[in-house]
């Protein structure tokens, strides 16, 4: 076990996987000598050299597209997009090329690559350093999308992603990069499967569902509720494509009330899918409508960096509404 924060968990996992498998390489802007602007690739350049830790031109289309060309030729590239907000210059590569490689070739080619993207707000970055673009990727058939919230899950899901034979977008909660530390299993096989949610707390009054950076506010909401005698079940989805429908439906059916917390824009956010599925599958079990607490449908603002994010106050208000319904 190592006590790691989230970036250390990323660097440590990349190190272990590169040591294990020569075909694993890292590419992106500043990932080499600089070790990445968030230092998530720190130490790798010294250990593995410029061939396997590639400082790329400042072009997301080149990074994502080249990662594809490498992957079909036998490598397992892990590309870093400096901020998830900069995935868009490479969006066509991701949507038109990477995601459809297996499908359009009838399974003849496949693209085992990973694209890491620091994501989410609360870092005073304004709208070009704070967005949560997960819905774009979930809406693109052929991509796996995961958004872990803890060092241990990040390590385990990154490892699963690197070993996956399909392309994986790993969204990383940059607000939590250094804010959370925990013991991460040193086991070089520590892997978290996709499509499995984690029930982080159990309670009978309401189910709080979240993922990624919003897990922090969700967890604090659950603790504030606990202090007031209300017990929440807290589900960390961790993986969005595929997502763990069964765990969500079992818990929500058992409790009858749920509040869905995510920090991306409200309309057609990922939680809209979760809410619709709950309504389709277990309407009869509901004591209250599924309630979403999310970011607002505005570009991410600079000055209102914190107010934009869904926090415990809004979560608790939603819980009250669910309890009153």
């Amino acid at each position, binding site marked *: 076990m190592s006590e790691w924060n989230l970036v250390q968990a990323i660097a440590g996992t990349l190190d272990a996987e590169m040591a294990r498998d020569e075909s694993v390489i890292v590419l992106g802007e500043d990932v080499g000598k600089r070790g990445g602007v968030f230092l998530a690739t720190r130490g790798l350049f010294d250990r593995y050299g410029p061939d396997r830790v590639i400082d790329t031109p400042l072009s997301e289309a080149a990074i994502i597209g080249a990662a594809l060309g490498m992957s079909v030729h036998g490598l397992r590239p892990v590309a870093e997009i400096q901020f998830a907000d900069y995935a868009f210059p490479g969006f066509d590569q991701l949507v038109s090329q990477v995601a459809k490689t297996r499908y359009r070739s009838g399974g003849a080619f496949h693209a085992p690559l990973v694209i890491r993207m620091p994501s989410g707000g609360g870092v005073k970055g304004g709208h070009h350093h704070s967005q949560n673009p997960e819905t774009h990727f979930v809406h693109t058939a052929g991509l796996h999308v995961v958004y872990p919230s803890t060092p241990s899950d990040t390590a385990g899901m990154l490892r699963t992603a690197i070993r996956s034979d399909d392309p994986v977008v790993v969204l990383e909660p940059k607000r939590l990069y250094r*804010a959370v530390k925990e013991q991460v299993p040193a086991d070089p096989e520590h892997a978290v499967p996709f499509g499995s949610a984690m029930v982080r707390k159990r309670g009978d009054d309401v189910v709080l569902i979240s993922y990624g950076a919003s897990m*922090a506010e969700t967890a604090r909401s659950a603790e504030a509720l*606990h202090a007031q005698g209300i017990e929440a079940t807290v589900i960390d989805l961790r993986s969005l494509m595929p997502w763990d429908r069964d765990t969500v439906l079992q818990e929500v059916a058992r*409790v009858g009330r749920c509040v869905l917390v995510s920090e991306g824009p409200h309309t057609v956010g990922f939680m809209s899918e979760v809410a619709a599925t709950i309504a389709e599958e277990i309407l*009869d079990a509901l004591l209250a409508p599924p309630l979403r607490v999310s970011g607002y449908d505005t570009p991410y603002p600079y000055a209102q960096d914190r107010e934009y*994010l869904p926090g415990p106050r809004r979560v608790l208000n939603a819980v009250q509404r669910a309890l009153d319904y």
Partner: protein
Amino acid sequence: MSRTFTLPELAESVVEGEIVAWLVGEGEPVALDQPLVEVMTDKVTVEIPSPFEGVLEAQLAQAGDVLPVGAPLARWSDGGDGSGEASGTGDGDEDRTNDGATATTDEEDDGSSLTLFTASGGGDDGPLPRVRKRPAAAQAGATGSGDSAPGAPDQAASTTASTAASTAARGPWGRPLAVPAARRRARELGVPLERVLGSGPHGRIRLEDVDASAPGGGAAPSGAAPGAAASAAAGATYAGSPLRAAPDGPEEARSPLRGLRRIVAQQMMHSHLSTVRTLHVDEADVSELVALRARLKPRAEARGVRLTYLPFVLRALVATLARHPRLNAWWDETTEEVVEARDAHVGVAVDSPRGLVVPVVRDASRRTLLDLAAETNRLAAAARDGTLAPDEVRGGTFSVTNVGAIGGLFSFPIIQAPQAAVLGVHAIKKRPVVLEDDAIVARSMLYLSLSFDHRLVDGADAVRFTNDLIRLLEAPEALLLDA
């Protein structure tokens, strides 16, 4: 007055910094923007330029100390008299860690990993609202107790509920207001929602209100505590199938029987309104069939199958349908097309204790006589036991009803819309028949009534179809050719 300077967030995602060196000593004057202290973070090492001008009263951390972002770093004096604003970098960042600190109080944590996040910032979480579950009094039904605690029904709703006697509050769509789980519970218990008094906001019916209104009710089922009842009751765990079989109810017309009756009524009305129902009646001399069946019956019984006339009729029917595909068809109203089925799936009306049920003999044309007998027996039994699967009552392409066996000469059966036709098969009775030579003999006669949708089928076609069917029934050995 003295003011405090806190450690700013020096780069995105940085949450702490290590003091490398102080560049200004305690008690020394300091100018605005003068390098004050050198701080190393995970991402950068920087000299912090002083955001203030005055005297550095105290260094609140020493070289080598690691401070969280927002922690007090220095105290300084502006030489004023103390009326100024206290503290800070002025960007409001200090509550970032404070929030974390207050949230890290939970020692009764259940061992989950939630505490992991207590140090993190973000989110609009100023003063937190007080959250309450509904008080116990409100759980048992609307009482208008006057308790105005949050979560209790508001005054107006309570008053409405108590004065409206036995009428539930209605939503804008005219239906009683109720949470989905309460609707299900009401269905299961046979409680009309219209008679339930809702205790929720605006008189919305909640789960416990239905329990309280159930016959012999007033209490939640199985003696559970009220709070537990609500959560457990919401439940039925998710297992893919949202509805359990309805339990048996009281003798009033609120049991699931009523549901089937209603469905039958709707279907009958739909058929009546949406088809151009036309009747053609004829009779068949089935004397040979009677003899044949009498010969085969013991053999079938030896193989465990009760052999009625129905399998013979079905065999003759599917053979005839193959020659008249227009009768094995349905009317697609959405596309205005006639759709002819490839296979014959024949519905057989069964008079079950719950009402009319029409299970479907799938792929009837591919079944042997014995197979048809076994399958119709099985479906009829299942229909009477109420154990038919949903798929066993769907997908018919033609239907047969032998209700006439109970009595009567012939009937005018109703079509299972959108099918093209239904065949009424009536009682076999000996009747006097005049032969070619004017001799009058007793023969076993069978009335057939074909009820068809005249939009799809012309009268002449219906007659030809019936003629072909009768020909087969009167010379039943032909049925055996490919049985």
